[in-house]
Structures are given as structure tokens and as C-alpha cells.
């Protein structure tokens, strides 16, 4: 693809050993005038970049934007950028819906859809994922796995555990996964995952992994769920400010790698290790609600296909779908 000038400039600045690139070097490399370069730099400033401009040395990035920057993501993820596979929007109904539209249009997978704001962020069964503007991650990754549906079951868990590992590695966080798809930090919800697949009996044709992460702000859910789950941002939970653009690049790289490992069926060993580390429900007394029953018992272990085994007086139940809450 023909990359835009802003992406090329950001990449040149990020790759320059001392961080400086002169305006004339940019003009030469992009085959445009100095005036055109100034125009692009001005647009980048409007996006939230701050630059040092020093005579004889050129420009240097002083501050990255607080909000997500398409130029930054494209500059740092060339393997996606060269296929025009990163779609960044100011506002979308839902990144999962947009990703599904792109797949239906025949776009090549994998692709990434990110919105700075969602108006109809989707949770399970049409519930809303509160998506306040600015500084959070609302994104979807879309794939065409062509795997048998039976292979798919542990996918959301695997990606959730991968995100837990990622969050712990960036530091100062102790994330825990609540089976099957919520991530808690400090006992409050910080990440939600919703996977949607389109399949027939033999093959999964399309797969969309939607993730919402409260990075810098969390919705106040007190009114929506009095006494229920509360939300927290990663900044609040870690006591520091996470830079959203580098965070997003590292997250996407991690998720794409984890997808690859899953697709190649090489995830089992790491899965087991991560599950032991991040399972919020281990040995806890829980209440599980399915479409037809309420089960009270102890969260025991995981079956290889990802079903949660709950022990109770009448024996064991393998939970494949439903809601699990901690009993108090």
C-alpha cells in the first residue's frame, strides 16, 4: 500500500538513533517540499504529538498523543500497515460490528479495528460495554481461522489469559481472569472480552475478538449495578500513567502471536501455566447460572476444552456457558 506521509514521518522519527530527523531529510525521503512536511507536522500536532524542533538537528518527538494515533500504530506495526489492515476510527458503533463488515467485504485477515470511542460497544447478549471517550482501548481483531468448531472452545480463555500475562508484564498490576472472559485488577473489572464467530458445522469461517480495556478511565457502574461489579482503570490500579499508543502496539503484537500459537494448536502447555496463575475462581465458592439451572458449588478445575468444573453435593457439573459469580 501507499503509506501516508504522517506514518512515514513518525516511523523515521521513531527509528532515528538519536530521535532527530531534519525537515530537509524528511522532504528528500518523501519526495515532497519542506512546506508539505510542515503541513504534516502541523496535522500531527493537532493529533496530540509534541515535537522539539532544534536548529541544525531537526525534529524529535517529545510527547506522544494521549489518544490513539493511526500514524503511530502503522509506523510500529509494518506487517499490518503494509496490507492496510489497521483501521482506526474516531467513533464507531462497535469495533466488532465494523470488523464483521470488513470481513464480509472480503478484506484480508488478520485485520484490526480500533475506535477511540464506541457508541454501541457490545457485551454478551447485546449488553452494553460502557465506552467513554478518550484514552481507553476499544478494539477488535478479525481472523479467518478455518478450524473445526470444536477447536474453538478455549479461545476466549486463552486470549484472556494472554492479556493477564501481558498486563502483569507491563508492571504494577496483578490481573486475575474470571472464567470465562472478564479480567479484574484489585477486585474490579478492567477488561472485557467478547468473541464472535461465524461458522457452519465443519469450519469456523470468521472470528472476531473484541476487547475493551479501561486504560485511563473506567465507567462508574454504581447506578447500573448497585452493589454489583465495579470497574477500574489500569492507571488507577497501577498508580501510574500508561502511554496508550505503545501499550496498544505491544498488546496487538502479543494478541497476534497468541492467535498464531492457538491456531497452530501449540497453546496447551502455556495455557495450563497461565490458568494456574490467573484463575480468580480457584477453590472459591461460586454460584453459576445457566439457561436452565442455578448451581452452587466450588470452582474446581478446567476441562481441556475450557469448561469449568463445579463441585457440589450432587457431584460435578461442567459449565460451558453461563454466568459465574463469587458467593459472599
Amino acid at each position, binding site marked *: 500500500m501507499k503509506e501516508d506521509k504522517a506514518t512515514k514521518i513518525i516511523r523515521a522519527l521513531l527509528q532515528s538513533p538519536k530521535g532527530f530527523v531534519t525537515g530537509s531529510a524528511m522532504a528528500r525521503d518523501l519526495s515532497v517540499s519542506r512546506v508539505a512536511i510542515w503541513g504534516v507536522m502541523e496535522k500531527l500536532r493537532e493529533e496530540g504529538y509534541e515535537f522539539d524542533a532544534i536548529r541544525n538537528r531537526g525534529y524529535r518527538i517529545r510527547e506522544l498523543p494521549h489518544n490513539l494515533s493511526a500514524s503511530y500504530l502503522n509506523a510500529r506495526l509494518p506487517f499490518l500497515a503494509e496490507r492496510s489492515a489497521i483501521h482506526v476510527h474516531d467513533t464507531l458503533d462497535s469495533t466488532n460490528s465494523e470488523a464483521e463488515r470488513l470481513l464480509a467485504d472480503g478484506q484480508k485477515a488478520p485485520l484490526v479495528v480500533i475506535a477511540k470511542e464506541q457508541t454501541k460497544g457490545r457485551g*454478551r*447478549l*447485546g*449488553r452494553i460495554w460502557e465506552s467513554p471517550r478518550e484514552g481507553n482501548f476499544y478494539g477488535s481483531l478479525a481472523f479467518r481461522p478455518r478450524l473445526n*468448531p*470444536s477447536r*474453538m*472452545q*478455549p*479461545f*476466549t*480463555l486463552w486470549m484472556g489469559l494472554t492479556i493477564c500475562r501481558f498486563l502483569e508484564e507491563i508492571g504494577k498490576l496483578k490481573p486475575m481472569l474470571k*472464567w*470465562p*472472559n472478564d479480567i479484574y485488577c484489585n477486585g474490579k473489572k478492567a477488561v472485557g*472480552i*467478547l*468473541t*464472535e*464467530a*461465524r*461458522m*457452519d*458445522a*465443519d469450519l*469456523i469461517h470468521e472470528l472476531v475478538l473484541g476487547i475493551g480495556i479501561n486504560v485511563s478511565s473506567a465507567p462508574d457502574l454504581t447506578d447500573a449495578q448497585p452493589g454489583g461489579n465495579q470497574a477500574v482503570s489500569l492507571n488507577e490500579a497501577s498508580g501510574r500513567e500508561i502511554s496508550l499508543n505503545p501499550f496498544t502496539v505491544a498488546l496487538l503484537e502479543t494478541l497476534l502471536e497468541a492467535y498464531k500459537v492457538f491456531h497452530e494448536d501449540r497453546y496447551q502447555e502455556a495455557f495450563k501455566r497461565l490458568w494456574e496463575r490467573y484463575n480468580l475462581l480457584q477453590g472459591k465458592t461460586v454460584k453459576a447460572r*445457566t*439457561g*436452565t*439451572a442455578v*448451581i452452587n458449588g466450588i470452582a474446581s478445575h478446567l*476441562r481441556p476444552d*475450557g*469448561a469449568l468444573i463445579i463441585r*457440589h453435593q*450432587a*457431584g*460435578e*457439573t*461442567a*459449565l*460451558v*456457558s*453461563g454466568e459465574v459469580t463469587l458467593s459472599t
Partner: protein
Amino acid sequence: MVENFNSFKFFPLDIKEVKELVDLMKRSDLTELEIEKEGMRVKISRGRAGQVNATTNFLPPEALPQGGGQETKQIPAPASSAPADDGVYIKSPMVGTFYRSPSPDSAVYVDADSKVNEKTVVCIIEAMKVMNEIQAEVKGVILEVLVENGQPVEFGQPLFKIKPA
């Protein structure tokens, strides 16, 4: 009574295999057949009314006292005794919860008399927060919706009956 939503896992044959066996039994006029697979013994017997029972022994044969540790399962009628008609079934490709609409407030994907094609999404099966949209795979008209919204479904369980166009 607590349900085991995944009893199929312990049942070494899938519905299709049972149907094949039953067809074989019908052709050769057998009333009883016993096979062993994955260390489990399965006995299928066929009564006069065309009703079929399958019995599974959960233990390896040598560990099994005569007649002990058995469980009898009723095989859903369509697999064995459906009279000849033009219906085909859309079956669940996985264990999970069956939903007829994308959200509680929205209209159902399909209903009886709905026309569908191969790509039409007919329902969602949710398992571990993967919302699996199931496609019809055949062109035709829905004759019957066989599962109620929100119910757990098993692998291979018939969900819809369709008259192919």
C-alpha cells in the same frame, strides 16, 4: 437435579455414527448390536416400533461386572425413527447455550416459514463467551424450531428442521 451439560463427552459415539449403526441394523434386520470403542462398550438395541436404545458402559470391559455401571440413553427420534419426509436438520456444531436472536430485545434470526440460504445466520450458540453464529448451510424453508431460546444444547443436537428448496 443437577444437569450434566456435557454428557456427550462420555458417550463414545456421535449421533451420526449411531444413525449409521441403526441403518445397518435395519438393513440386516438386527435387533441388537454391541460395539467397543475407546475402551467403552456400546450396546444398541432396536425394538419393533423402531425405538432405539443405546447403552454405554463407562468402564473398560474387563473391569465391568455383568450389567453394572450402566446408563441408558434415549437417542433423539430424528436420528433413528423419523418417517421419510423432506426435512433435513441443522445440528449444533458444539456444546453451549442456544439463542435465537442476537440480543434479548432483537427479533429472532429465523422462525418457522422463514426462507434461508446457505449463508443465513439461524441462531447463536454461546460457549465460554464465544458467540457462535450458526449458518444454515442449506437453502430452503424452516419447518420447525426444535430448541427453545436459552436452552443448553449438545454437540450434534438438531436445532432446526428445514425443507430444502
